[in-house]
């Protein structure tokens, strides 16, 4: 049997006869060759260093996690400067909110951070309730904790899967998305939607959880740690993963605070701050969970923090299922909560309440309220200002991934271009929220 040889030079463009990639001289021809098309008229532009190259990454690029555009100045393979450009997905949610009743804003919150819609719903409802002075029921409190922690699991699973893909590992992506699919099935069972959940209302929830939800979630909490162990085993001590993430994009604790980072980004830098523990809402202080804190503030520590947060979220889910009390989900205030449809059709008083709520909306007293909740991405703040009408004067979202992303130029400078991808992935951005 004779051995067949392959002429690599003929078979593959860009590869020489030995199978090595052909080296392309980059930027040797000076600014005219390195600058993109359409800049011929920029005659008196400042002299661009000849050995530098300008690269445009995005807005349509798989590693930018949406429509983020990065303009990167390179010296060789090293990043000298990054200029992020955002706004491609700007939808004007905050402006829209000024023209809507409080309950009508909740569907908009789904679409901001669309990887954790239920947690966004909870954040808005909490702010509106603080503004109106509404105390929610014990069952609703626990249901909202379940909603928040389910969101944390799916958001971190998407983060882990896509980051692994960015760094060349495909298998964890499939495992992570299988787990996400199981949570999505539970979300669908509860709210009827997989992505745009709109699960809260001011003063309560869209609906109580259906039969079969509890056992389904319990099954999830029992089996989810197995997947986490597998992900841990395949990544945490993986030489490629460690080599691509350790020491990359590191921020000290002081820098992280100065850049107003929040969530896993802040904790990975060694700042033990978690709103669930330090400014408790929804009785989070009564749950038994740990706050993982990193040490070096690099991409690897952010990964470790998020992986551990999944375990802790799973613990909280199991505890919440244990303690889920019976009782009403919505507050017993007919001015806030719509009456049952059958009552609205048969009872005069209920019909009036129904009419007033739908036509006039729920009025909030004059004042303003800020509620920050610990979303998977960081601190999601909702700032509401009311002038006494049924529509807010100002609805401000404090977007965690927008503020976290603003530290990207600081983190990426001096690293390789391929590390920029890892750093950008480690920020965990969702452009729906960055651009709003």
């Amino acid at each position: 049997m004779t051995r067949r040889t392959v002429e690599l030079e003929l078979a593959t463009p860009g590869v020489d006869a030995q199978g090595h990639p052909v080296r392309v001289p980059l930027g040797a021809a000076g600014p005219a060759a390195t600058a993109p098309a359409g800049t011929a008229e920029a005659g008196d532009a400042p002299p661009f260093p000849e050995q530098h190259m300008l690269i445009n990454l995005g807005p349509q690029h798989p590693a930018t996690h949406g429509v983020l555009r990065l303009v990167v100045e390179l010296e060789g393979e090293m990043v000298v400067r990054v200029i992020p450009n955002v706004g491609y997905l700007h939808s004007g949610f905050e402006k829209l909110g000024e023209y809507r009743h409080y309950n009508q804003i909740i569907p908009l919150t789904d679409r901001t951070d669309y990887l954790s819609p239920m947690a966004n719903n909870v954040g808005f409802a909490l702010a509106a309730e603080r503004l109106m002075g509404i105390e929610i029921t014990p069952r609703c409190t626990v249901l909202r904790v379940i909603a928040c922690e389910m969101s944390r699991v799916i958001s971190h699973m998407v983060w882990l899967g896509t980051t692994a893909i960015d760094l060349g590992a495909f298998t964890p992506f499939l495992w992570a998305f299988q787990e996400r699919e199981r949570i999505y099935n539970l979300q669908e069972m509860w709210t009827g939607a997989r992505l745009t959940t709109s699960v809260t209302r001011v003063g309560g929830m869209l609906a109580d959880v259906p039969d079969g939800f509890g056992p389904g979630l319990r099954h999830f909490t029992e089996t989810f740690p197995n997947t986490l162990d597998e992900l841990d085993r395949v990544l945490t001590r993986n030489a490629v993963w460690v080599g691509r993430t350790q020491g990359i994009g590191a921020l000290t604790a002081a820098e992280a605070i100065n850049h107003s980072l929040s969530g896993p980004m802040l904790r990975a830098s060694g700042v033990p701050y978690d709103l669930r523990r330090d400014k408790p809402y929804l009785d989070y202080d009564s749950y038994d969970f740990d706050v993982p804190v990193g040490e070096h503030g690099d991409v690897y520590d952010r990964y470790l923090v998020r992986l551990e947060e999944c375990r802790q979220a799973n613990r909280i889910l199991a505890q919440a299922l244990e303690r889920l009390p019976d009782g009403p989900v919505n507050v017993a205030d007919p001015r806030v909560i719509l009456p049952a449809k059958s009552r609205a059709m048969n009872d005069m008083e209920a019909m009036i309440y129904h009419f007033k709520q739908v036509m006039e909306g729920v009025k909030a007293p004059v004042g303003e309220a800020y509620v920050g909740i610990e979303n998977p991405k960081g601190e999601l703040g909702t700032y509401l200002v009311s002038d006494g009408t049924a529509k807010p004067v100002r609805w401000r979202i404090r977007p965690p991934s927008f503020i976290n992303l603003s530290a990207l130029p600081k983190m990426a400078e001096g690293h390789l271009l391929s590390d920029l991808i890892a750093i950008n992935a480690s920020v965990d951005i969702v452009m729906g929220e960055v651009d709003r």
Partner: protein
Amino acid sequence: MNPSVDALRATLGSAIGRVGESCGDTIVYVAAERLRDVLGWLRDTPGEAYDYLVDITAVEYRDRERPLEVVYSLRSLARGAELRVKVELDPRGELMLDSVVPLWQGANWLEREVYDMFGVSFRGHPDLRRILMWETYAEGYPLRKDFPLRGRFSRAEQVRQALAANPEAHYSLDELSIAAAAADLPTDMQERLRRGERGTLPHSE
């Protein structure tokens, strides 16, 4: 009521205006020209230590007589205390404030967003450009109350402008002005770049 208010009044008396409270949060109104002094004092005084800037935003009321407010939310991570500092600006006058980027790097994009959405300029900001809207956006400031929900221009005009736009222009070195700022990089970074060194861990030996 937050005890920081009394300390503020005792130290920077003339800069502190009225104090309000809403839903458990303390709101302090500050004179616009003393803003950076007040925020710097709150950040650097050991007993106050408001080291974390939560948010910067602005509010314009439907009542045209009320001034436009720029809102700074501060938090002390160690003490867990929160304070909301507000500055009032006359929307018919010049909307100009001192930038707080020298105090908090995190204010960079937040101030750009307030500029983009409300038209408030920040003196001393390193890179005050529009951020969510594009740089050639000509319809005004979207979150102002006199801005109609569907925008100032008709749909036909918006389409015409979009078609006439030259997106290639945004890729020019001229607009990005990267090269001009190469010398402005921190010296340690220039040094590192010259040596061709990668970033190091802050705590490693």
